[in-house]
């Protein structure tokens, strides 16, 4: 049996958008590559249901944070490639800042002694 600490963590609500934006910062990629990139860079700690990516991509596209274009994938298949827009870049900066403040605050609550030490 897998040990508790090795179990992948389910995604928190709203974090998926932030991770997608961050992943697209390195250039346009398709949905499958986004899923793989999130899994790989989180060292398989985060579990993303690949299916949940697609509504999130529609949402981000609708909000003008990303745009999509059909292109050809590595293995010669038609795939939709997503780009970060200027608005998306700005959103990424704000959301990253918010996320950092939030995790700091939670860490302070969970480990109140760490700061004194």
């Amino acid at each position, binding site marked *: 049996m897998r040990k508790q600490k090795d179990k992948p963590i389910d995604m928190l609500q709203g974090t998926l958008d932030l991770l997608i934006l961050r992943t697209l910062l390195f250039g346009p990629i398709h949905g499958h590559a986004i899923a793989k990139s999130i899994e790989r860079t989180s060292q398989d700690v985060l579990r993303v249901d690949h*299916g949940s990516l*697609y509504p999130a991509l529609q949402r981000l*596209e609708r909000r003008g944070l990303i745009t999509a274009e059909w292109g050809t*994938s590595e293995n010669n*298949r038609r795939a939709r490639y997503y780009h970060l827009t200027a608005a998306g870049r700005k959103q990424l900066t704000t959301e990253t800042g918010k996320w950092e403040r939030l995790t700091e605050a939670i860490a302070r609550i969970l480990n109140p002694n760490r700061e004194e030490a």
Partner: protein
Amino acid sequence: MRWWSELKYVVKKLNRKRAERELQEEIDAHLEMETREKVADGLSREDARYAAQRAFGSVALATEASRAWWGFGMLEELSQDLRYGARMLMKQKGVTLIAVLSLALGIGANTALFSVVDAMLLKLLPVKDPQRLVLFQAQWGKNFSYGSYFGSTLEDPATGLTIGTSFPYQSYQLMREQLQKDSALSDLFAFGNVNFN
């Protein structure tokens, strides 16, 4: 210009068939890529396909949730509500008839009443430059009497004179004659009560 890009997105997705086809193609491509990756890891084609589907989760759910972003949102809900309302009204024709009739009577009565009030109280008199109209009052001393007088009177505390709102018809005639020589007024008219039987 976020609303502009949102509008462009919604308009593009108005072609539902195309949007559906593109999403389907995108998801198919995703599953195929994942399958190939698993095959490369050493799984059989069948197992790889199954693993890809498991990693993806429900395709129906993903499609449904994606579709939710294509609509006009509130506007679409509103039209759904309106259609639902219309269906319900058609279902219960009696209630609808009574509701429509009472609305019609209520609105009709209000309109009739308002047009009377509007003509009598709200509208300015149909003359040129109504803001330049003046209203004459009569003033008379204690030892003067009209004989018979219709109208309201009021005592001016400063002078002790009585101020009245009405003039005898003869006064009106005299004032009209005076008007011919006086250029301060362009016209003069009088009004009074008329009793209908």
